[in-house]
């Protein structure tokens, strides 16, 4: 299991949830993987790339083979693909490891230039997931039925989280929609010698400056936006994928 990599160019995307009724990112993901590979980036899928808990078999059969094929072609061109395990795809860990090509990691410490960044899915800092994992799983599974009724229910949930975040007294400087724990966790990591931290999991994108001058970035879910994080020669940036032009 690797946790430490050195790279000049890394593109990080998270929460594709391929196989989820709400996830309609097959074409965008294939185009993105192709673009990443042709631009000379390595790729990191920062958790929840594949869906288990809210699985739709028809979506899996429609979407997953094309994406895996695109990833395989990228790897044949020399692109390194790192897969950081999330909470929705943790049961796929052995499969992803054995499928070949992916470099699986619980998290990544990325060295680029003189900078050091942590890339991690972030579910370990979700207070609901940590305090009540079974209830969390059950609620996620129940949510899957709502998504089968109409996938757009998910957008309502995202709007609710953003509203709650704006109303929450302790929001302070965090990413809107996120629990303050994620910013606190990023600050803890910065204190251990990281210049920046990249999480996924929350599906809320944004960037926040950390107490020591570093940055916490979350690209949000690739289902909801085309944002990704890129590390280029030590620089950490939030970027947006615009189809064939990147």
């Amino acid at each position: 299991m690797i946790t430490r990599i050195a790279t000049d160019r890394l593109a990080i995307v998270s929460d594709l949830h391929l196989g989820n009724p709400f996830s309609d990112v097959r074409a965008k993901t294939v185009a993105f993987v192709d673009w990443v590979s042709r631009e000379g980036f390595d790729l990191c899928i920062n958790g929840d790339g594949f869906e288990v808990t809210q699985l739709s078999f028809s979506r899996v059969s429609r979407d997953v083979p094309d994406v895996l094929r695109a990833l395989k072609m990228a790897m044949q061109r020399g692109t390194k693909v790192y897969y950081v395990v999330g909470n929705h795809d943790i049961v796929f860990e052995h499969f992803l490891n054995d499928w070949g090509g992916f470099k699986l990691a619980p998290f990544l410490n990325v060295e680029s230039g003189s900078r050091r960044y942590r890339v991690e899915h972030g579910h370990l800092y979700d207070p609901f997931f940590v305090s009540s994992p079974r209830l969390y799983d059950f609620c996620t599974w129940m949510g899957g039925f709502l998504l089968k009724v109409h996938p757009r229910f998910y957008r309502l949930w995202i709007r609710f989280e953003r509203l709650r975040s704006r109303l929450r007294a302790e929001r302070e400087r965090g990413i809107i929609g996120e629990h303050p724990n994620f910013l606190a966790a990023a600050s803890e990591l910065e204190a251990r010698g990281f210049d920046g931290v990249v999480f996924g999991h929350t599906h809320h994108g944004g960037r926040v400056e950390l107490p020591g001058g570093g940055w916490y970035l979350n690209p949000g879910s690739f289902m909801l936006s085309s944002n990704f994080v890129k590390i280029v020669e030590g620089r950490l940036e939030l970027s947006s994928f615009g189809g064939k032009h990147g």
Partner: protein
Amino acid sequence: MAQGLEFIHYQDGECIFQEGDTTQEMYVVQSGEVVIRKENRGEPLTLAVLRRGEFVGEMSLLESLPRSAHAYARGPTKLLRIQAGGFLLKIRRDPTFAFELLQALSRRIRTKNEQLIAALSQGNLSEAKKILENEA
């Protein structure tokens, strides 16, 4: 900063701790470098140079034993000091800290084993003894 944690700044060459000290904090290198040295029959021996993100002094925290080597700052150095009381709190708030600590310890054991096996397979008992003494 959470309880049991604080940043400490050191100048170039400043001593962080000496062999035999009974202090029990551990450190994480936030910036700069830490040189670990040991006296070996009167000769100073550099055991390691620790950089950003690496751990210093964890053996004394975990085992409550005196320091086994000297530690000095190389260049301006900023360390995150973790005291025994804050250690478990740190693990709770930052679980990958424990993972990386275990990785570091595993790496050290494996490296020492490889060095020991190499020395013994060459019949170099004095080298093997030096490796074991540096562990003590």
